[in-house]
C-alpha cells in the first residue's frame, strides 16, 4: 500500500501530475483521489498534445483505471518527500 499512500498524500496536496497511459495518451490533471488499485481521479484535466488527441475535449473530471496506467510524472518541487517517506516506513513496519 506504499504507493497508494504516496498518491493519497499527493491528493491531499492537490498536486498536478501527468499520467501516461498504456494506450499512449498522456493526461495532466489535479489529483483528487486514489484507491487501492491505483485507480486515480483527476480534475481540470488536459490531454497532452490536445490537437492530435481531441478525445476528451469536454471532460474536466476523469477516472483512470489503475491497470491502464503506464507511468506517472510529477514536478519534484512542492512535494513533501519527507512525509511520504515517513508514511512509507510506517507502512513497512506494520508488515
Amino acid at each position, binding site marked *: 500500500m506504499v504507493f497508494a499512500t504516496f498518491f493519497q498524500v499527493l491528493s491531499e496536496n492537490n498536486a498536478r501530475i501527468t499520467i501516461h497511459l498504456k494506450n499512449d495518451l498522456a493526461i495532466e490533471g489535479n489529483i483528487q483521489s486514489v484507491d487501492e488499485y491505483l485507480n486515480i481521479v483527476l480534475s481540470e484535466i488536459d490531454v497532452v498534445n490536445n490537437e492530435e488527441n481531441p478525445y476528451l475535449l469536454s471532460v474536466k473530471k476523469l477516472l483512470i483505471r489503475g491497470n*491502464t496506467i503506464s507511468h506517472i510524472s510529477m514536478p519534484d518541487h512542492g512535494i513533501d518527500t519527507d512525509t511520504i517517506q515517513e508514511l512509507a516506513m510506517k507502512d513497512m513496519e506494520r508488515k
Partner: protein
Amino acid sequence: MATDFFQDIMNDVVNVITNDGRNFVGTLISYDQKMNIILTDCNERVYESKDVPVEAVKMNLYSIRGDNIATIGKIEMDIEEDIDYNQVKAEPINPTHIF
C-alpha cells in the same frame, strides 16, 4: 475512492475510453464494484483518420465490462454544446497494450 466518483457522475453524460481504443458517450445509469457500467442513449464516437470528421454511431443501451475500461470522464455540457464535432478529426485511439 472510486465509488465516490461514480456516485458523483451517476445519471450524468460520461465519456468512456475502452482498452480496445473505442470511445463511448452515454448517460451512466448503473455501475458495480467491478466497474461494470450501463449507459443509455449511448453513441460510439468513431475516429477514422485526420481527414474525416468524427462519426457518431448509435448504440442505444450499452453495457461495458469493467476490466475493458481505460478511462471514464464526466462530460461538462456547457463545454460540449460549444464544440463543433464536424471540425474534430483524429486518428483512432490506440488500444491499451497488455504485455
